[in-house]
């Protein structure tokens, strides 16, 4: 142990030494921005300093070659600095308008899509999936790659009514987060329990406590301490699986994909909203999930044609109403769209406000 070095508990690094010098020099002094073209932002500071940002998409999972390539391009075009956005896009800052087009040309030549600004479909916020998660129902990077291939035009153009944020999650815990359109694994069968392993692997009271509907109880199975699930109560959420891997919730056939819409975290216009279920039962069809892509593209095309400028997905549905959303998208409305979780009655229409 003596050879081990005690950590330097240095915490979050100061961003200033890493920051593009024009951003650092004008920190807190910006007064104007515009959007000259897709993938490019212009910012001006109070003293007249100007900076253009070129934004582009990545795979998020970056190999050493790609990281070094980004560094080479940043050294050549962007003063040796870059930043990453919350959705894994990269931003290069340049200080002359003339530097934009050569940079875009070179980024495109290496396969980096320039876009993701303003009224675009931005990069999909996503999780780890089969690559690194211990409880995934599907992959993450693969779904994102397949969908962004389909939505590439919407990323590099900015022709949506307002920005569109997408997310994907490999289980109902929803690490991908709230979004205008969220693609989330939905289990449809209770966990299959490997009773031989439960006693050795799981802390049973913890697992019992984890269940949102109190459907799990301790039981003796084949003479061994284990757990049993009241399958009539079980909502197949998978919350018992992380603390107790023998409670296998992932089911290659019956774990399906659901689509949710209308989530937004910005306070602009309406208050922030959670996304709502609109479709489910879609197959986990690797490697390109065509059924999921078809539904996402259908929703996007209706939204693009029908929403007013600046209406986010949720704003648009607020105006046209849910019946017309289902009508226009052709998605079936079922009993499962009617919430029965706690607080559900506040989601019912307690009025005669009905559009005809």
């Amino acid at each position, binding site marked *: 142990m003596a050879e*081990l*070095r*005690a*950590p330097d508990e240095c*915490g*979050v*690094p*100061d*961003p200033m030494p*890493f*920051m593009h010098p024009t*951003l650092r020099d004008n920190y*807190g002094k*910006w*007064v104007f*921005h515009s959007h000259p073209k897709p993938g490019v932002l212009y910012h001006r500071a109070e003293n007249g300093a100007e900076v253009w940002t070129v934004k582009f*998409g990545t795979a*998020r*999972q*970056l*190999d*050493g*070659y*790609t*990281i*070094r390539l980004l*560094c*080479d391009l940043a050294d050549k075009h962007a003063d*040796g*600095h870059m*930043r990453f956005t*919350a959705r894994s896009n990269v931003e290069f800052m340049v200080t002359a308008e003339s530097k934009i087009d050569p940079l875009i040309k070179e980024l495109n030549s290496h396969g980096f*899509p320039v876009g993701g600004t303003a009224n675009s479909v931005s990069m999909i916020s996503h999780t780890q*999936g*089969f*690559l690194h998660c*211990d409880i*995934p129902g599907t*992959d993450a990077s*693969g779904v994102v*790659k*397949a969908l962004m*291939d389909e939505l590439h035009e919407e990323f590099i153009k900015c022709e949506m009514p307002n920005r569109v944020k997408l997310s994907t999650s490999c289980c109902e*815990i*929803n*690490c991908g987060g709230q979004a205008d359109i969220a693609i989330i694994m939905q289990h449809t069968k209770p966990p299959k329990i490997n009773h031989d392993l439960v006693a050795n692997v799981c802390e049973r009271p*913890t697992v019992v406590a984890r269940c*949102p509907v109190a459907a799990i109880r301790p039981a003796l199975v084949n003479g061994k301490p284990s757990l049993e699930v009241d399958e009539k109560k079980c909502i197949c959420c998978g*919350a018992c699986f992380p603390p107790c891997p023998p409670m296998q919730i*992932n089911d*290659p056939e019956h774990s399906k994909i659901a689509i949710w819409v209308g989530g937004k*975290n*910005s*306070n*602009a216009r309406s208050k922030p909203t959670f996304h709502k279920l609109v479709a489910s039962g879609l197959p986990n069809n*690797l*490697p390109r999930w065509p059924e999921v892509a078809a539904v996402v593209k259908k929703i996007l095309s209706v939204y693009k044609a029908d929403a*007013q*400028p*600046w209406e986010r997905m949720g704003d648009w549905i607020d105006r046209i109403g849910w019946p017309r959303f289902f009508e226009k998208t052709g998605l079936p409305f079922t009993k499962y769209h009617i919430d029965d979780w706690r607080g559900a009655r506040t989601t019912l229409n307690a009025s005669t406000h009905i559009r005809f």
Partner: protein
Amino acid sequence: MAKKLHDTPMLDQLESGPWPSFVTGLKREAAKKDIMVDLLGQLETSYKTKKGYWKGGTVGVFGYGGGVIPRFTELKDENENPVFPDAAEFHTLRIQPPAGMHYDTATLRKFADIWDKYGSGLIGLHGQSGDIMMQGCTTANVQPAWEEINAMGFDMGGAGPALRTSMSCVGAARCEMSCFDEARALRTIINANIDDMHRPALPYKFKFKFSGCPNDCVNSIQRSDMATIGTWRDNIQVNEQQARDYMKGHGMDKLVNDVISKCPTRAITLRNKADAVSGDSISTVAVDDQHVMQIENHDCVRCMHCLNVMPGALLPGKDKGVTILVGGKSVLKIGATMGTVIIPFMKLESDEDFEKINEMSRNIIDFFAENALEHERTGEMIERIGLVNFLEGLDIDVDPNMINHPRANPYVRMDDWDEEVEKANERKAAA
């Protein structure tokens, strides 16, 4: 040179198409590293069987209790040997990025070099909590890799029941909407509580996020236990030249349909110049020679919409500060909850202001540590005990900005109504 690639017909299908392919990236590393050859083998198996094959475990670095995500393969043959032995251990080190995720190329190259030497070469930029994810490391290489990363001045992020890595928007570095120094707030609070990140001992995870304005670009309201969001309390600032430029470029239709009629509280009015009203709470800007746009700032909820549509023409006020919301979280266990207001406005400029928010953050973590049940998030705790108990525990006064509307049911004991009225009057007198 690494060993021969396994056949990956399903993953190969993700190499075509216009979006950058992670599979192509993995294969580049696999040309050099056996760990990546076998990682591709396991991933292809997952694609075929639709099953995951990782389990957790206990791997860490000397001195810390968290920050490494251990992954051991569960894909074993009939003799319990890993099918893909070179990727049998594939751990991730979570590393905290500089606030705002700014980098110089020397730093990124160094990360790539370290990960060539000790890991799979695959770095995720970034995870959903904002971590640099150094993915794919054997147990033996975790400590030496960490020591080199730490020597660069980077520290480990959070995992488990701990303070988690934080995020702030680009903010003051490149945005005119920024209402406070996001990076300073993030570093003040996270670095003061770093012990709770490195030695997980909280009931469950605790996340801070920092957004410079109510556009909330890092989604603090839905994704953090304590959200600090910039705002202002005086009048929206105007720039007539920019407003006229907007009008020239967009016309009256757009001004009416995109700006004025989309104001959620109908705080904006378009008037003939001659009919303009005046008052201390009104922002007025001429959009052409005939018309002025007037904003009643008492009715404005600082939603950001009109500022977003007319950048530069409308700007946040000068009396800037932050709103603090507590209790945002995702699904487990009671369903997703948003953060709700506990501090409608506080200044965040002076050293004393930062000390005040730092102290309050510590108090909230302490209250959470003492009162939350195991595996309960702050939002769930507040749902269980009620907001008022939370506020009283933190010595924060009630405020009507904390609610959508007052109680709509009579099921409450109100024996000491008169005392509470007295307190309300005292608060009013002190304001």
